[in-house]
């Protein structure tokens, strides 16, 4: 058995676990974010800033973005694994992870600057 196949077996369990964990955590976070944002639909800059300045909003956004992009990257990985062949899929999955991580970091940074 090569090292890669051992890693592949192990990473399946890790993937499954993180997918469930991020999914369960996103249940309340995503629902609350949707309700909160629906409440200020079409808000102008001052209302939106006031919303983003609330502790609950900061908490939801700071927890939500990393969870969202983690859950998203894990999901995209499954789609790539299911529909793209072996040599290309590895690079595509890495690319998806880099994109998701970048988006998560930029979003989290923006949360600190939004709403003062």
């Amino acid at each position: 058995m090569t090292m890669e196949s051992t890693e592949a077996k192990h990473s399946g369990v890790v993937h499954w676990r993180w997918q469930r964990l991020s999914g369960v955590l996103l249940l309340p976070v995503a629902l609350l974010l949707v309700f909160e944002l629906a409440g200020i639909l079409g808000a102008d800059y001052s209302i939106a800033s006031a919303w983003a300045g609330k502790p609950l909003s900061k908490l939801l956004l700071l927890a939500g973005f990393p969870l969202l992009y983690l859950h998203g990257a894990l999901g995209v990985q499954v789609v790539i694994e299911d529909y793209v062949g072996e040599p290309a899929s590895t690079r595509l999955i890495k690319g998806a992870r880099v994109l998701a991580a970048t988006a998560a970091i930029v979003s989290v940074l923006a949360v600190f600057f939004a709403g003062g």
Partner: protein
Amino acid sequence: MSLWVILLALGEGSFSCISLFVEHLIGRLLLLAWLFSLYYHLCNGIRHLAWDLGYGYAIGVVYRSGFVVVVTALGLTLATAFWAQ
């Protein structure tokens, strides 16, 4: 949502272009479609979690829970849309 927060962080001038999207009919329809997709995914995720725990494998229950997921997602979408008005 990332874009919303990033534009908010960039300031009032950048943020104002969000309203072009939100106030437009097509923007509203896209938001509605996104909302339904999210609720459907969320409800079906709960269905999958039940399967992970070993529940709901009888073929009749599988069909019924699939139906319940679609109806619940539709209901939540409409409820949110009306509440947000």
